[in-house]
């Protein structure tokens, strides 16, 4: 079993839809949770960063962490064609350690105009 599981999609939604992207994980030691966005033929870029359980909102994006269920989500409101990309979840046992950063396999999202 992989440490981090992410539905690869592809996911296709109409413009304006609410998108829900999810990851599950098996290691209860993970405390830092991130979402990276990767456009086609580009490198990943950090979108959201949260520590422990709870919600964090940034514009149209909301990251949610439920440590009791070992489940994290990224919600995109009013989705736009420019949101079309692959979304990678990532998590770490402690801050400051790239060695302990584990990425999901990514979910490919297409927002149709």
């Amino acid at each position, binding site marked *: 079993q992989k440490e981090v599981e992410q539905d*690869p999609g592809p996911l296709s939604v109409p413009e304006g839809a609410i998108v829900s992207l999810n990851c599950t994980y098996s290691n209860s030691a993970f405390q830092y949770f991130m979402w990276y966005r990767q456009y086609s033929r580009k*490198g*990943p870029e950090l979108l959201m960063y949260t520590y422990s359980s709870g919600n964090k909102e940034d514009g149209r994006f909301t990251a949610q962490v439920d440590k009791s269920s070992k489940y994290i989500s990224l919600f995109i409101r009013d989705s736009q064609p420019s949101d079309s990309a692959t979304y990678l979840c990532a998590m*770490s046992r402690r801050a*400051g350690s*790239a060695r302990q950063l584990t990425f999901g396999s990514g979910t490919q999202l297409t927002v149709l105009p």
Partner: protein
Amino acid sequence: EAGVAQSPRYKIIEKRQSVAFWCNPISGHATLYWYQQILGQGPKLLIQFQNNGVVDDSQLPKDRFSAERLKGVDSTLKIQPAKLEDSAVYLCASSLARGLATNTGELFFGEGSRLTVL
């Protein structure tokens, strides 16, 4: 501010040949990483440098992969001899401090070098 620069963007070689990738991190970033991203998978850390010293190379296949960061700035990743399973995108990333920034966990990635081994 210029981002992380990588070259070449694309490379096609035959198995058992050698290849080298170059990375120039964001100016002032002390930490540099090389990741391997196989199609349909998330990035996997190969090696981490702090200035010109190796912090972690535990996942680098040292029988065929090598990397250096002379003078603590640019870095080169070499594969010799290449195998079919080395086909992937090689991503270089950098960060200000050692490891991830404690308040954002942010790595700055380049666009990657896509390797196809035939």
